[in-house]
């Protein structure tokens, strides 16, 4: 570093440190802008992650069936295919088996599920009463319950014939009435293990519902992989759910980016105004420097260097504050901890520096045009 560069650094340092009140006002403007920018962009990154968990309340977004939708799959087949699902994005996987059953000679459809997994894949199920906790307990769909006046605590017997045409029957206690707004409202919902025990036939699944936080592209990719590696199975993305998610996410992300752009513009105006004030206050100093022989570009460079320091410092402080702000927003809106994006900090600092320098350009251009003779005379 040459003596002059060192002296320039010294001048800039004292200009900022010995004019603290001015520095703090300008720094506050840059920091607030950088804070909002950092937090918004962080949320932009985090919203898909956060909302994809929220969207899981819509139910499964990937369904496994036998190829062509004909026949039943084994648990081993399902488990092999399910191994392709990204574990960190898997919310739940519920195998289902449907059987035609009867109660007092009236036909019903019974569905065997894994209740623990069903609560994960179908969080929208509303149960009046309690979920079954042990063998011999079941949920009755709300339509069925209304039709035959079932209430929690009552017992009923389901009977039928298995594939081998052997008769079976089993008594169940209704622990709850389930309302889903879907076909399940017309079903008797029992555990898969009870279904297997009742029919005497194990390892037969009609379908499996998977709930993943992946986007539609990733679901299609999984579907393609399943098709390639397990020709006997199909993994069908639930397009209705996936595309709704995509639409909501893309609109929300666009909105947040738009707000970020507005904030960026406001920051630039705020910094430009502050710098304009700073420059006007220092017209005499600029006039003096020019009277001492400073070329316009040197004076401009000094002011832009001050702007750069403010931008970098404000960007750094804004990144730190923005992380806390985004964390607070995430906790209050989504009820979950934020996943920090450290790579956004240098980007915020760079954007903040560029915005500050751009905001400084107009005031600095005006500043270097001052006539030293006029400002030194106090005009």
């Amino acid at each position, binding site marked *: 570093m*040459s*003596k*002059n560069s*060192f*002296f*320039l650094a*010294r*001048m800039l340092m*004292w*200009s900022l*440190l*010995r*004019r603290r009140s001015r520095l703090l006002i300008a720094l506050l403007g840059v920091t607030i802008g950088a804070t909002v920018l950092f937090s918004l962009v962080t949320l932009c990154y985090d919203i898909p992650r956060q909302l994809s968990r929220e969207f899981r309340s819509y139910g499964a977004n990937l369904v496994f069936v036998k190829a062509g939708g004909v026949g039943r799959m084994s648990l081993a087949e399902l488990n092999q295919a399910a191994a392709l699902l990204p574990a960190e994005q898997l919310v739940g996987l519920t195998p289902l088996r449907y059987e035609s059953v009867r109660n007092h000679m009236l036909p019903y459809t019974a569905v065997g599920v894994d209740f623990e997994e069903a609560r994960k894949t179908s969080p929208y199920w509303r149960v009046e009463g309690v979920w079954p906790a042990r063998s011999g307990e079941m949920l009755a769909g709300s339509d069925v319950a209304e039709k035959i006046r079932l209430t929690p605590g009552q017992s009923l017997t389901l009977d039928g014939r298995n594939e081998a045409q052997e008769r079976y029957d089993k008594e169940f206690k209704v622990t709850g009435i389930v309302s889903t707004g879907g076909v399940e409202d017309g079903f008797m919902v029992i555990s898969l293990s009870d279904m297997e025990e009742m029919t005497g036939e194990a390892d037969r699944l009609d379908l499996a519902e998977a709930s993943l936080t992946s986007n539609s592209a990733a679901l299609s990719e999984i579907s393609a992989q399943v098709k390639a590696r397990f020709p006997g199975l199909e993994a069908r993305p639930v397009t209705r759910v996936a595309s709704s998610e995509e639409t909501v996410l893309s609109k929300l992300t666009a909105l947040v980016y738009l707000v970020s752009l507005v904030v960026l513009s406001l920051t630039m105006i705020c910094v430009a105004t502050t710098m304009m004030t700073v420059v006007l206050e220092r017209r*005499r*100093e600029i006039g*003096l*420097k*020019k*009277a*001492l*022989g*400073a*070329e*316009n570009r*040197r004076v401009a460079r000094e002011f832009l260097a001050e702007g750069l320091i403010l931008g970098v410092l404000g960007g750094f402080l804004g990144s730190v504050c923005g992380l806390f702000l985004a964390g607070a927003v995430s906790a209050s809106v989504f009820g979950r901890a934020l996943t920090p994006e450290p790579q956004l900090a240098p980007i915020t600092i760079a954007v903040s520096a560029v915005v500050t320098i751009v905001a400084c350009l107009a005031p600095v251009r005006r500043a270097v045009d001052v*006539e*030293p*003779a006029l400002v*030194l*005379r*106090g005009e």
Partner: protein
Amino acid sequence: MSESARNILEITDVSKIYGPLKALETINLTVPPGQWLAIMGPSGSGKTTLMNIIGCLDTASEGAVRLDGLNLAQLTRAELTGIRREAIGLIFQQFHLISYLTALENVMVAQFYHSMVDEGEALAALERVGLADRAKHLPRQLSGGEQQRVCIARALINHPKIILADEPTGNLDEANESLVMDILHNLHQAGSTIVVVTHAPEVAAHAERVIVLEHGRVVSDK
């Protein structure tokens, strides 16, 4: 050696016109090297305008100004800035020190824009005006007289061909005025060319030549 080569400053038929107002009217003046010239006159007589033209802070509307052989009328603004940097030492009535820099750093600013900073040389300049012990003080920690001496040290640091002082004692008490005049005396003794603008006869009395301006014209040259 020709006449013009001997003079550090030559002003020929210089006028400065602001709209209907003639601030200077057909001024002719030559200043040989080493001369101490005082420009006197009442307020509005054109003293400061003349000093600004000599100091390359302003340009003449008519006429020619030659400083150290260079015709200032033919120079661009950037070139005039260069002349200010290289050849002129400015002393202001209001001192104009940079508030966030120490006395030493204020002197070094002139070096910074001229060539290369040299802390030792800047300290020596402060020593020359009797302020070595106040080198680390900020302007607000210095008295008016001390601030003016820093301003003089800053004007001297780049060894200018001519020192221009605009009312250098205008804001000073008698004691400090005397100190500043002593410094200017010493500079004159050392061979510096000095042009002082003043309305105070006691300040002008120190000069070896005094011109008086009235309504933009030289009415006396002694």
